[in-house]
């Protein structure tokens, strides 16, 4: 990856110098109101194109803008030369003025095609869809035909006010001009209408990040069009409108640069200002990478262990021998690869990887897919480095949160086990001894003593039952011993609302995943009973490509929300620690709580 290639850079410099020379020399020949707009368009579009070329070398829009600017520069210079009076008055025009003026006139329809095509391709440098290609071809054919006529017969001279005549004198000029006068307004209207239609069509279907620059362009172009209409209506001349065209170039530049590219500061501040949960943060890092350095796709991979032997290969520094699992991506909702990959398997095609390092430890990689020809500038690479450091911090925090959850589960399991093996065993033993005492009392004919012993035994067993429930709430033994299906069955058995339970979980999953799914279902069921007044709850747990998918949907009154200190917040925290997020939708049709917990 590099900055614009040396060839591209030299070409850009040459075009820049040529345009500056043409416009500069032309301007030195005097001010001609009828030609000023060409000079301004030349300068503004060329400058816009060069700026885009420099910062987004892979975006064809830069080349198109530059070409539009350069074409106008040629026309401007040609007309300036022809308009330049060699002597105060009556003198012969400068040598070659007829040809120079000709150069400044006939390409107009073609230049309009180029400018229109440039706008049609805005802001990506490509047509919105292949369906527009025939339209572009038609537009080019129309422009070429008009330009050809204009090159052969002086059909446009009357409007340009050139003091020199055409260099070619073909017969039939009067007839052709009469026909062209009819064709011209229709042709020009078509050439303008096509790109306007194209931009509006693109705006209607564009994703959000594209819509903003497009809106800017439409507003600017629309304002220019209004000025032009007003100018034609009031002064009978499109000149005012033509003078507004350079603004379109400015809007186009801003649009292309803002497209998928925020400044490093913007990208970082957007990241910091986003919703703060670890899972969201990773999405935020991916979005910030996409935002800040462009690229068609971004995926964050987390190191999950050493790679299988023999697949290490030549990954980027420090990532050799690491198995990686995709955890987050941009655009949001993109399908993430299931199962671990090595860095070499990720860095294929147009994908490149940047290691995510924290405290010298490789925690994962950020994979970036760039468009063909797209390359990163040094500033973008710096930004990528900073963002990968952010990702490193997030991953480190996530790892410790994961450890905390695991440690908490382990502690609960230990307490449950201690209760089971210790105090619960003692209590049932004491109850058994009380039973013996009662029997002995009966044998000794001491009925009151037997009744007393039985009453104490009853109390003791009630306490034992309470303790049993307490231990179950801490960490159900059935979950540890028999897995999620049995544990969820137990929850469903005890539910005060009918539960339709579907479990498709073959085998065992990591303890933290099972426990979290169990707690999610318990919490959601309790809420459905307590708050929603549900009649039926559907519980679904299945192993999906992204991990364990759990959902609990009730038909209750809705109104569930994540409140500070509430059960759902604790659940969201626990899920976030496992790299999952809490999906909550709650309305009059009921509440659905779901998640997909990665099992990698």
């Amino acid at each position, binding site marked *: 990856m590099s900055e614009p290639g040396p060839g591209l850079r030299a070409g850009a410099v040459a075009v820049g110098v040529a345009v500056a020379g043409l416009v500069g020399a032309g301007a030195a020949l005097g001010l001609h109101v009828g030609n000023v707009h060409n000079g301004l368009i030349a300068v503004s579009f060329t400058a816009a194109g060069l700026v885009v070329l420099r910062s987004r070398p892979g975006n064809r829009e830069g080349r198109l803008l530059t070409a539009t600017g350069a074409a106008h520069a040629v026309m401007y210079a040609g007309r300036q030369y022809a308009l330049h009076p060699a002597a105060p008055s009556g003198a012969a025009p400068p040598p070659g003025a007829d040809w120079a003026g000709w150069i400044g006139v006939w390409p107009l329809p073609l230049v309009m095609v180029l400018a229109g095509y440039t706008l049609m391709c805005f802001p990506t440098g490509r047509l919105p869809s292949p369906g527009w290609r025939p339209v572009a071809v038609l537009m080019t054919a129309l422009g070429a035909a008009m330009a050809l006529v204009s090159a052969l017969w002086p059909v446009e001279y009357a409007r340009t006010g050139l003091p020199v005549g055409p260099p070619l004198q073909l017969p039939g000029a009067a007839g052709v001009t009469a026909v062209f006068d009819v064709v011209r307004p229709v042709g020009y209207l078509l050439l303008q209408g096509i790109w306007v239609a194209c931009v509006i069509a693109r705006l209607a279907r564009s994703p959000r990040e594209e819509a903003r620059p497009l809106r800017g362009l439409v507003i600017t172009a629309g304002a220019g069009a209004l000025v032009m209409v007003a100018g034609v209506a009031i002064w009978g001349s499109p000149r005012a409108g033509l003078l507004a065209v350079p603004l379109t170039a400015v809007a186009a530049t801003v649009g292309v640069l803002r497209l998928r590219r925020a400044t490093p500061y913007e990208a970082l501040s957007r990241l910091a200002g986003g919703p703060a949960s670890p899972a969201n943060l990773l999405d935020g890092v991916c979005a910030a990478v996409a935002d800040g350095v462009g690229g068609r796709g971004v995926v964050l991979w987390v190191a999950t262990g050493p790679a299988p032997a023999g697949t290490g290969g030549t990954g980027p520094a420090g990532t050799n021998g690491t198995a990686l699992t995709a955890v987050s991506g941009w655009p949001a909702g993109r399908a993430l690869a299931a199962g671990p990959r090595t860095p070499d398997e990720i860095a294929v095609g147009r994908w490149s990887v940047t290691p995510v390092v924290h405290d010298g430890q490789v925690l994962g990689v950020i994979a970036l897919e760039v468009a063909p020809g797209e390359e990163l500038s040094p500033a973008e690479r710096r930004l990528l480095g900073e963002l990968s450091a952010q990702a490193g911090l997030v991953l480190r925090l996530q790892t410790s949160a994961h450890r905390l959850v695991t440690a908490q589960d382990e502690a609960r399991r230990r307490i449950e086990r201690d209760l089971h093996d210790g105090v*619960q*065993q003692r209590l*049932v033993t004491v109850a*058994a001894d009380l039973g*013996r005492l*009662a029997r002995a009392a009966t044998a000794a004919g001491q009925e009151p003593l037997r009744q007393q012993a039985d009453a104490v035994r009853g109390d003791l067993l009630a306490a034992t039952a309470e303790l049993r429930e307490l231990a*179950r709430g801490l960490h159900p033994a*059935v979950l540890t011993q*028999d897995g999620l299906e049995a544990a969820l069955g137990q929850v469903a*058995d005890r539910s005060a609302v009918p539960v339709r339970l579907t479990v498709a979980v073959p085998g065992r999953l990591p303890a933290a995943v099972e426990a979290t799914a169990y707690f999610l279902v318990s919490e959601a069921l309790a809420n459905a009973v307590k708050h929603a007044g549900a009649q039926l709850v559907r519980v679904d747990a299945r192993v999906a490509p992204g991990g364990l998918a759990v959902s609990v949907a009730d038909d209750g009154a809705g109104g569930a929300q994540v409140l500070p200190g509430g059960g759902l917040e604790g659940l969201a925290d626990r899920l976030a620690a496992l790299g999952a997020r809490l999906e909550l939708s709650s309305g009059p049709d009921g509440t659905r709580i779901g998640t997909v917990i990665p099992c990698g």
Partner: protein
Amino acid sequence: MVADDAVLFREGVARILADVGFEVTGQAGDGAVLLAQVRRDPPDVAVLDLRMPPSFSAEGIETAAAIRAEHPRVGLMLLSQHVEAHHALRLMTEFDGGVGYLLKDRVSELEGFAAQIRDVARGRTVIDAELVSRLVSRRRERDRLGDLTDRERSVLALMAQGCSNLALAGRLHVSVKTIETHVRSIFTKLDLVVDEGEHRRVLAVLRYLRA
């Protein structure tokens, strides 16, 4: 024979069994030792903890299955700190009678416990009342239990615990004929196939309650 890794409780059980007239022929701390003792001297009934070393999961059921495979006539009474439907169903499915599944709490009701041990020794099936009442009171989507009369519901609960028609008649102070009528009515209302074997009847009812 009694097997439980909790020594205090195991000895308590042994004392109780001795009190109510059983001969305790051996005590074991885990399934392997119990199995060895059963091989040496097969008892009428083996009383064993469901959660035992080394795995502390369903060790008791595995040991029970091993005993049943080698000595089909040894009754098996599993005790646990908590009774779970899936364990009960597994015991019902893998064993054809002569098996019991009770909370450890039940040991303290000496006479009742003794009777249940004897039931298991006779090849009957015993399921803990708490588990059954939990399943009977469980909320269902289309609850056909609602079609049952109160009397039929109590018959159903006792049936699920392993009571025979004779035992039911005794418990509810009615004739065996009346009980048979109740049972038939229950099976018709729940759309269950009437099965003659007591054990199969328990299994069918448990499966129904769990579904």
